[in-house]
């Protein structure tokens, strides 16, 4: 059971209106704990999950957005955002949380986890995955 599989988590919902985003994060962290090859794709309203400056204080519910910034520590460093979805919502990379991971092979240099990809390239990554999990 030591075979490493490529898990791709497809996230397409905004963060607080439904539980999908939070549930996805939980499952991602479980997959990472089992040392699988984890990627996350953010498509459609899923891109809103990564927007910086989230503050849920007045909603009285947990702001889970800081968890995304911790993903690098769990070796989740392949975060793909669909360009078409960002563009349609008037967002750019500057509107998103800067997610980083540390490359231990380069003296723990901080590197960006987020890659913005056009649909065509993202389609290829979906094809390459061993397992797709839809949220």
């Amino acid at each position: 059971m030591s075979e490493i599989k490529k898990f791709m988590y497809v996230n397409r919902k905004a963060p607080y209106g439904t539980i999908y985003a939070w549930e996805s994060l939980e499952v991602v962290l479980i997959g990472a704990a089992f040392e699988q090859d984890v990627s996350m794709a953010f498509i459609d309203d899923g891109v809103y999950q990564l927007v910086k400056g989230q503050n849920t204080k007045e909603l009285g519910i947990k702001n889970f957005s800081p968890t995304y910034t911790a993903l690098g520590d769990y070796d989740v460093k392949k975060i793909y955002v669909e360009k078409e979805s960002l563009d349609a919502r008037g967002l750019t990379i500057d509107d998103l949380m800067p997610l980083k991971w540390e490359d231990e092979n380069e003296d723990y240099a901080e590197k960006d986890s987020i890659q913005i990809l056009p649909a065509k390239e993202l389609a290829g990554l979906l094809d390459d995955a061993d397992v797709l999990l839809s949220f």
Partner: protein
Amino acid sequence: MAILHTINKSPFDKGSLETCVRLASKGSAVLFIEDGVYGAMKGTAKSGVVEGAKGDLSFYVLGPDLKARGIGEDKLIDGIEVVDYNGFVKLAVDNDKVQAWL
């Protein structure tokens, strides 16, 4: 690796159909189920999405979900194949994985 894409939301309510078509590679299978079956109908404001993609993708629709909604097969876009539950299972088995456009 081949993917079976499922769409279970009405194209008039959600953008799942458009997103699926944007992200499905050539040769992929797309199956309409539940409220997604409205996306298989011809003569609607969304029919063009399927019409424009059917050269690259194979479209299927789940018969029991059509019948439940009173949609006759004569109302479907040409080239969409109606499958029963066994056909759904076969599509799932014949592809490497399933992407559900929820």
